[in-house]
């Protein structure tokens, strides 16, 4: 091999390392001071999901680095131009390598599965969260293209806005009306769940830090998709009670007429808060509307309740 080639490959290696450093610096600069919800969780479920994410990533990165660095090392060591390396066409068939080929990934599999299985049970969104504070139920209805939240006990209806008290388990009961499949997601507080017509999917979350968080739709559902965002305010329990009291004093009401108006497709709706004394009835009507299809929403709900 001519000299130029050798010098070239050395240069390329240095260029690659330099490029990698620049790459990391650019990334660091771009995320500096930014909020990364999944890495700065504000809810108990999100906390555990974050822990799980970090642990499993760590285990796999260590394993993957070991395996791929061997590939790159061999590619370099046994390169044709390296005359010092031995060449043996029948090498590499050792029983040991074969054994580790199966054993190593199985080991990683067993470790990860033993972490995953209990976590899946524990973090199942249908499972209620244990707490000294009483659970708050909020019905969430996905529409084209906005989120309607109904507070059955507080007589409140909100659009693209939800307020919840801190350190209180919240049971979001997700469904949809005249809308395709949707996915309800507040990244700071925990994972998402689908909101579909004729089903009520319970998603249990609990915030542990006061603040204002973004939420939105995560399943494409037509051209208003990107605007189907909402704010989730987590307030102290006192502030929440004040808010509830304040809304109760309002004269305006949210009833069937307002509900029907919301069913008209619209995009980028601004947040709205209403006093809504009979929202239980609105919700029952919605369930009845799709009852003819399968009517097993009741069934799942009962099962989930029974589980606790």
């Amino acid at each position, binding site marked *: 091999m001519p000299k130029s080639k050798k010098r070239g490959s050395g240069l390329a290696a240095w260029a690659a390392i330099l490029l990698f450093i620049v790459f990391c610096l650019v990334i660091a600069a771009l995320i500096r001071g930014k909020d990364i919800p999944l890495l700065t969780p504000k809810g108990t479920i999100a906390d555990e999901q974050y822990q799980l994410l970090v642990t499993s990533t760590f285990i796999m990165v260590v394993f993957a680095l070991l395996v791929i660095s061997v590939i790159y090392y061999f590619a370099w060591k046994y390169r044709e131009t390296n005359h010092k390396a031995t060449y043996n066409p029948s090498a590499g068939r050792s029983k040991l390598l074969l054994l580790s080929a199966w054993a190593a990934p199985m080991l990683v599999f067993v470790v990860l599965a033993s972490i995953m299985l209990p976590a899946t049970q524990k973090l199942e969104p249908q499972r209620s969260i244990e707490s000294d504070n009483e659970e708050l139920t909020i019905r969430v209805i996905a529409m084209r293209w906005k989120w309607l939240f109904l507070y059955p006990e507080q007589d409140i209806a909100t659009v693209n806005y939800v307020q919840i008290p801190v350190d209180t388990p919240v049971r979001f009961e997700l469904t949809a009306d005249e809308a395709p499949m949707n996915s309800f997601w507040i990244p700071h507080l925990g994972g998402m769940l689908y909101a579909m017509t004729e089903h009520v999917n319970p998603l249990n979350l609990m915030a542990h830090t006061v603040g204002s968080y973004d939420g939105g739709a995560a399943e*494409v559902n037509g051209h208003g998709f990107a605007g189907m965002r909402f704010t989730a305010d987590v307030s102290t329990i006192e502030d929440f009670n004040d808010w509830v009291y304040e809304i109760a004093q309002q004269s305006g009401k949210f009833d069937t007429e307002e509900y029907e108006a919301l069913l008209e497709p619209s995009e980028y709706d601004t947040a709205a808060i209403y006093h809504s004394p009979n929202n239980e009835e609105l919700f029952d009507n919605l369930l009845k509307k799709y009852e003819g299809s399968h009517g097993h929403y009741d069934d799942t709900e009962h099962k989930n309740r029974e589980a606790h």
Partner: protein
Amino acid sequence: MKEFLLGKLDGSALPHEWHTIAGSIGLGLMVLALAGFITYKKRWTWLWKEWLTSVDPKKIGIMYFIVAGFMLMRGGLDAVMLWLQQALAGSGNGYLSAQHFQEIFTAHGNIMVFFVAMALIFGFVNYIVPLQIGARDLASPFLNTLGFWLYVAGVVMINMFFFLGGEYAATGWLAVAPLSGPEFSPGVGMDYWIWSLQISGIGTTLGAINFIMTILKMRAPGMSLLKMPLFTWGSLCSMIMAISVFPLLTMTIFLLFFDRYLGTHFFTTTGGGDPMMYTNLIWMWGHPEVYIIMLPSFGIFSEVVSTFSRKPVAFYKTALVGMIGVATISMFVWLHHFFTMGAGADVNSAFGVATMLIAIPTTVLLFNWIGTMYKGRIRLTTPMLWFLGFVAIFATGGITGILLAIPPIDFQVHNSLFLVAHFHSTAVGGVLFGIFAGLNYWFPKMAGFRLNERIGRYAVWSWIIGFFVAFTPLYILGLMGATRRLDNYDASTGWQPLFIMSFIGGLIIMLGVALQVVQIIASFMQRRRLADTTGDPWDSRTLEWSTNSPPPSYNFAVIPEVSTRDAFWEMKRLGIKKPVYKDIHMPKSTATGIYISILAFFAGFGFAWEINWLAVVSIIGVIIILVARTFNEDIEYTIPAEEVKKMEEARESKLGTLKEQHYSDEEDMGLLEFVKTAPGWALGLVRGKK
């Protein structure tokens, strides 16, 4: 009357938006230019007789490559448009409407999976598998040409919306119900989706049946299943998976079609429909589909690593167990695409475990490559560089894939850009890089000259760097809570800089694509110097290299006898016996596949626009042609032994005349030289001097 004749079709369907007008004019000009060129060169008869009606799998393979190459450009252009919109959307609203943006990502997904990845895989299977198993043609050459032309009909259908209708499906590549139903997507775009996938999907099923028969029944004497090269094995696994799940896709799309056309309630929100059933059915096909395109690619890597390490595959049987394991388990993991639908912890756990299990055979394949490289003599040619790039990208895709298999983590990153980055890592790293490795590896076999190594290396590096610049920001954006398919987002999210970085990465990838085109042109310019005169430019091991480059229509003058796994390697060691030539029977060209596909296209078009008479007439036409074909007994021709001998001897005499091959990449044209010489060369080509 007008409604009977034209269905829903009327003047408003003509192009009237900037993108449909531009698309129509652009595509129209391309077709006109091509037609003009062929007319000018007086090549119509040649094109029809030698190529379009050919049943030679080598020619059909190359036609797959050409069509898929154009579709790769088309899908890549879509990707750039998506990137640009998202880079701009953080300040202002970008330049695309939500509807248009959603149509583009739907088309991007459909094109890349069905009309690029699947087609390129079929291209390789067509060209290489018969050569690797020592066969002269396929079990059913007619089925093969039919499959290819149905694929072309699908390609035309997916591009039809430029000319008529002006809209494509805006539902995401799998058109999940109920969004794809009549209630939420009444437009004709959804019907184009249905029929482009339906027609090409049927082509895929037919092709897969044919290749399973070919691999099982047409192998050279002595080549037992356990002596088959790993690419053939990967293809066999892939084709078996294809016939297992593609009928499922066909039926699911039919049910969706019934919902839209007849008003049934399979997947609607009302009337007893169950949209969740659609999600299940489509992913029962959709997940195996991922491995249908990946397994042949793993096969390609196995061939490449073995050849360029100058060593046999280290753990052949283990690799087989790995491939078959991946193929089998991948049938039982579909639910991991919707852990978030709320099936409950037990169901999610079962599918999570199954998904993690796939990582075991996949890692075993990696270890197999490690064992193959160990104490080898590794030539870092471009196919090998594609392999090394694949390792890094696929590793990130694998890690994030397992993360997504853990339900509680999936709940947080599902449908986010993290997921988008994950499947691009596996699809680009695992499938596309494999295809590119295969292209560089087998190009000399197909074209008779090898590809330029220097420019090839630049292309590899552009792709790898571009990939990480483009997709690392998407992983981070996913963790920031950015969902996929957002045409717009608020400036306050702070996502814009990362989207811009991703867009720049996309441009670097496009540079890689451009370099690949330059690589092919530059190699063509230097084709004399790069000529492969021996048929075995890489000192390879498998049978496809034992014949000339490019191979004669009958592949092998004498069917090889196989006694070991690396059959050709063994032949080279023992020396090749003096051949005894016999008559060769080859299948005749046929245009039947073209006629059927044209009618299939019109049937789909008729249903899309509810022009019922057209659909009915076309279907009847298809049936008549198929029945008529069965009465045609005259489907073979014979090449007499004398002629074979003459052709072979002519070839052999040429072998010695050109200078002996030895490769020094230093002589390959660099970019600078290409820029200097290409314009003059192109001018000469146009003037017809060469």
